[in-house]
């Protein structure tokens, strides 16, 4: 049954640029993949095809341009200036949090007179506040809200301490010096810093910056799977474990569930073994679950990589020269496999040198040369394109 129908745009790259120092590896490449399509990306060696893939996966950070995948913008449009601004204000907040510690100590627990346990519990509290704000540097929207809440709470605390400040006249800091002279300037500092931080985090450029930085694993969760030009299997893991690793991002068991072997975590483990076996059967490796990945023959390793990528439940699969180094029989098998994957409703973006493979597989083909997009269209159009013929046969 053919589920293939070209649907909405899944991946769109717009004027993507990647520079390495003075070398421009990818020059303003625009490309789109619709759901269900098989798209080819071809070009001579060093044309920037793999670099382009790396940009899609956030392995390499694009110099400029935009990528939208499944409704998410993958490239940060944050300017250096605003990210520096956010970094510095986060640092300011961290310093204030550390300063806030002795103040709370004195105000909340004056009767404990700064004993070890109070110091320990409050320092962990202060550190926990800072810890919660880690995603600030990754521009996650909720971390910005959290910071604003923390800052507001600090402001309220500072006001109430000043209000009650007379009560702390007697308290001394670790029995060393009176606490009162520290409380007043400390509270004032918090009061001054609070509006500054609030203001900074409500600047329009800062607001805009949030929600745009993504790591490779987050992009995989959105549904972009990939294989590699030179096979990158986890060679000392078994075949099954390699594919189960692909299930990692689709399972949720937390640290305690895993360490104490809670039923939910164990059930999930069985589920992922089952799903992984399914993927392995799909690529025809269902018989070799326990052998080491490195012990498989070359063609099987390629298929294992595909199975591992399929286990992440991709919407779009990036295949980087899947037929490289294969004999004609193996590459014919590969073509069948790619068609079956496509029939299962997964869009495919494929890099391939072998023109023959490409011509009878791809719906559309993009041609890169020296980082530039020189042609795009159906296989028939590409075959007769003068620039493509020159790039492949000339030089």
């Amino acid at each position, binding site marked *: 049954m053919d589920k293939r129908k070209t649907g909405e745009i899944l991946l769109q790259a717009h004027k993507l640029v990647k520079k390495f120092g003075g070398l421009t590896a990818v020059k303003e490449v625009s490309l789109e993949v619709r759901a269900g399509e098989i798209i080819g990306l071809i070009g001579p060696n060093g044309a920037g095809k793999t670099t382009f893939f790396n940009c899609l996966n956030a392995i390499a950070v694009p110099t400029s341009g935009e990528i939208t995948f499944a409704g998410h913008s993958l490239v940060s449009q944050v300017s250096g200036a605003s990210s520096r601004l956010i970094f510095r204000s986060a640092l300011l907040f961290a310093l204030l949090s550390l300063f806030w510690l002795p103040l709370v100590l004195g105000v909340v627990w004056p009767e404990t007179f700064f004993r070890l346990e109070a110091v320990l519990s409050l320092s962990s509290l202060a*550190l926990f506040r800072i810890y919660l704000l880690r995603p600030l540097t990754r521009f996650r929207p909720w971390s910005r809200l959290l910071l604003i809440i923390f800052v507001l709470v600090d402001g309220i605390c500072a006001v109430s301490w000043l209000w009650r400040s007379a009560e702390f006249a007697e308290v001394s800091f670790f029995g060393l010096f009176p606490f009162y002279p520290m409380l007043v300037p400390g509270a004032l500092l918090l009061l001054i810093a609070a509006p500054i931080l609030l203001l900074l985090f409500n600047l329009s450029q800062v607001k805009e910056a949030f929600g745009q930085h993504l790591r490779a694993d987050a992009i995989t969760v959105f549904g972009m799977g990939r294989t590699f030009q030179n096979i990158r299997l*986890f060679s*000392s893991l078994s075949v099954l474990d390699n594919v189960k690793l692909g*299930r990692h*991002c689709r399972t949720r068991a937390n640290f305690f569930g895993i*360490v104490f072997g809670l039923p939910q*975590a164990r059930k999930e*483990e069985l589920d992922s073994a089952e799903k992984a076996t399914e993927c392995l059967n799909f690529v025809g490796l269902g018989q070799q679950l326990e052998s080491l990945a490195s012990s498989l023959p070359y063609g099987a390793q390629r298929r294992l990589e595909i199975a591992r990528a399929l286990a992440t439940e991709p919407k779009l699969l990036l295949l980087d020269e899947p037929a490289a180094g294969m004999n004609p029989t193996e590459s014919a098998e590969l073509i069948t496999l790619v068609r079956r994957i496509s029939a299962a409703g997964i869009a495919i973006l494929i890099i391939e040198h072998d023109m023959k493979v490409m011509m009878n597989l791809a719906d559309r083909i993009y041609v890169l040369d020296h980082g530039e997009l020189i042609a795009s269209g159906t296989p028939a159009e590409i075959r007769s394109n003068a620039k493509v013929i020159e790039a492949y046969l000339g030089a």
Partner: protein
Amino acid sequence: MLTAILEHSSLFLQQLVNGITLGSIYALIAVGYTMVYGVIQLINFAHGEIYMLGAFISFSLLTGLFGVGLPFWLAVLVAVLVCALAGVLLDIVAYRPLRRAPRLAALITAIGMSIFLQNLALLIWGAQIKSFPRNLIPAFFNEPALQFGDVVVSWLQVIILLTAIFLMLALQLIVHYTRLGRAMRAIAQDKTAASLMGVNVDRVVSYTFALGSGLGGVAGILVALYYNAVYPTMGYFAGIKAFAAAVLGGIGSIPGAILGGGILGLAEVFGGGYISSSYSDGIAYAVMILVILVKPNGLFGRQLRDKA
């Protein structure tokens, strides 16, 4: 030689028992070094200090928080959790910002954190050696569990050995049969590929630190009970010894660390017993050097993998 050993068989057996006890503690610490090294190729020199913190925190929890000490087992549990958390914080504060820096930078930071934590303990708890009050730890610990003639095995020694065996088995299960362990092994091989397969590398590294530091904390508590002494520099010496054990077994390999810990513990105790107690450390290190001379990658170490 054989007759000499037979004549002194009770001494020999007693040394064997002590050696195994010490060895299982070294193994517990060494596993922490080896796990972190396996995953991010960092020698976490501050690991010994986590072990020291385990001892101190359990001591503080027992002798009185808010005026009331916690019951023994609860104190142990909380101390282990605090150690795990301390390990995670150590990673986040000191190592994570340097993940992409040259490896030497992280190594120096590790040494710096070790010195920092040692001095922090000095500041909080003071330099004098502390010992657990007898009435606060279960009384049966120092009673003999087994006795053959002159050879005595105390309950504490039995507990140390059983704890170590149990934790090692649990760790092997976690590393080989769970989602977390699989991610750890994958990151050890290829961080980029793992992250492209949807593994949150930072989180898994944090969990690795939590596991290793938790085990280090357990070792710290056990040692503090065994020798009944807690002091700020205890982590330094034990840390170096456990590091040697991890290297001996092949750093990066968990079974290697367990075996290395055992060998080093036995070498130290037997060397101390039969040659001279003042040379016991020297003998332990000499054994390590001999093994490394013969097998430069350690007993279970892999050849440095080539990028194939």
